[in-house]
């Protein structure tokens, strides 16, 4: 029965359309491998990601949320990833204050050419989340069907 109780984390990855989403596509084209627990949401730019989206994901039961954007200086919109970086720094320190392990969140720069890095990042991140276990602190139990 142990197999059924195996922890399958829910991981949301926000990827900017120009670099990281293309990097994720390249990971696929190169037949790289990363866990199916990672689900990608496409956004035009990392600066489109409102901290509320990340809170929402945690509230709905996500165990980890990762934000991927273009490398600093390479943003398709020139400055978007700088805004994202600052916003996430703020959000992560707040989450930390609330007692959410800061390892559950992460910002990573992945360019359109870095398919291997994308897969590697996702493998690492999933590994970290598996170690941390389920996110219970922020999950809103009312969102669960059984409630």
């Amino acid at each position, binding site marked *: 029965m142990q197999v059924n109780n195996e922890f399958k984390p829910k991981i949301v990855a926000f990827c900017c359309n120009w670099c990281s989403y293309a990097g994720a596509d390249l990971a*696929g084209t190169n037949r790289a491998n990363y866990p*199916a627990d990672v689900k990608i949401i496409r956004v*035009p*730019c990392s600066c489109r990601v409102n901290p509320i989206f990340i809170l929402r994901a945690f509230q709905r*039961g996500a165990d980890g949320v990762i934000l991927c954007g273009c490398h600093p200086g390479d943003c398709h919109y020139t400055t978007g990833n700088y805004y994202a970086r600052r916003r996430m720094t703020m959000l992560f320190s707040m989450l930390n204050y609330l007692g959410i392990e800061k390892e559950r969140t992460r910002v990573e720069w992945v360019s*359109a050419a*870095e398919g291997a890095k994308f897969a590697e990042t996702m493998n690492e991140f999933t590994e970290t989340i598996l170690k941390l276990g389920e996110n219970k602190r922020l999950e809103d139990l009312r969102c669960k069907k059984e409630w």
Partner: protein
Amino acid sequence: MRRIGVFVCHCGTNIASTVDVKAVAETLGKEPAVVFATDYPYMCSEAGQNIIKEAIKEHKLEGVVVCSCSPRMHEATFRKAVASAGLNPYMLEVANIREQCSWIHKDKEEGTAKAIVLGRAAIAKVQLNAPLTAGESPVVKRALVIGGGIAGIQTALDIAEAGYPVDIVEKEPTIGGKMTQIDKTFPTLDCSSCILTPKMVECSQNENITIYSYSEVEAVTGFVGNFSVKIRRKKRYVDETKCTGCGICTEKCPVKNVPSAYDLGLKNHRAIYIPFAQAIPNVAVIDADYCNKLTKGKCGICSKFCSAGAINYEQEDQIVEEKYGAIIAATGYNPISLDGYDEYAYSQSKDVVTSLEFERILKADGPTEGHLERLSDGKQPKTIVFVQCVGSRQSADAAHGGCGKEYCSKICCMYTAKHAMYCREKYPDTDVYVFYIDVRTPGKNYDEFYRRAVEQYGVHYIKGMVGKVAPQADGSLMVQASDLLSNEQLHIKADMVVLAAAIEPNKSARPLATMLTASMDTNDFFTEAHAKLRPVESPTAGVFLSGVCQGPKDIPETVSQASAAAAKALGLLAKDKLSCNPCVAHSDEMMCNGCSSCANVCPYGAITYSDKEFRGPNRTTLIRRVASVNAAVCQGCGACTVACPSGAMDLKGFSTSQIMAEVDAICK
């Protein structure tokens, strides 16, 4: 709730092998809003698209979800299909179940489960999609080519011939690039200058072409069809409009020790110089670091001898501002620095040269006037060793100071065959050795050319690497190498060693890519929009790629790609209007409090404020400052949507509620 149709693609076996497509269609078909769900081997084919079109009509679909490859691949295809069935093209979402699912996961059960979740997220999003119409923006009918080598020249000529004005920005004092330095070109062995200089002259005479030589791009703003570019015209201390290129100044200048960039420092010129005889524009330039007048304030000889009065020691940099519809990057390459390759004694001996330096030695206007001579003592070398892959096909580790490149530089095998052949033909008593890892000669008449070097000219090709080049007391060079096929250690006493240095993108390409917001790969080559299907376009709309800035290539390939880039740019310039991206920000005036947070983060200045009248309580009128977005200027990044404290700003196509719906669906 909208009536949604779900279409699951097999992509042959690409998706179907690791995702149970039938199960995905069946499961998604049971979602509350879904009224129709099916699967098909190739959704992007005409038959597949027809299934979507018919289903839209038959089932009165209000939203379409296609589970297939990446939206970067076929979103546009499916949008067109949806539109032709009478539905708004933006009522479509693509769930990426190929690149981000079937190609990643090996386990069919896992893959199927993930595909279902991705499909659900797309269904949740499309429920909230709004019909969008694209606006239009005008196209400036002028192109900018950055880089004036053979790539830039060919692109500019093709665009100019089609009747559109085009500007070339070249950072050196003359156009022509690397090809001007080369003696002969493979595989036909025709003279490089003889085929290039007529094209350079054509550029200068074509009335549609403006050449900004000795200039650099300083800033780029705007977007496809409407770029604004600042070009810095560096001071050359010579008035370009007055100088006749007579060259008297370059003979009279007393400073004779300026290393010539054209001759890679193997020859000197004066402080005022014309790079080479066929330079375009044929205008002198003063090297400010060496000129006596500019460094010490005394001299002025060139100005005394200039009958045209073109010398101007007070000249300043000029900034030119121009608008362009399309920009073509043609920034080219440079051989890598060999500082990290001490084992080849490049810095210790004058007789160890790079292939480009060897090319200068062979060329009639080079340091030896075209005679094959050692640079150290002027003697004719009797034994020459060529070393291939110096810095190419290596791991970019610290062993060579991080200079090594992982890629194949592509041109070295062929030009070395050319050099070796030349040595044997002109000086049949010379022994020529070529050390190689592999000889790579794909291309029309290329392998025949290489075989001629081996069979007809008796060049010794040895598979193996050179370990060390040791300069000897008698001036010769002891080459220690291994022959991999006979498994022997070789010691060759050579008179000259030629290193085929790897090529790397020009250093100016990286800052340019940042200005253009065009992406680059880890080697600093520009990335193309699609490796196979859109090889001459950057993913950034309106930016095209020409020549080696996209990847190593030889002259024939560069010219073909340059013409392809021109054709793509012309396709853009020929349009009067472009349809804009309708996924732009918009502000809800009822919620906006005019705080300016959004305008502060907008990189395009697309947000303006105006005072508007609103109805207040008790028949009063309130005047409030509210934001509005200029849809033609907004590029849809969404920075403002997050900055807005009142939630008035939202992004069409990626609205807050849409993304939240996706989050919910994924976390369910």
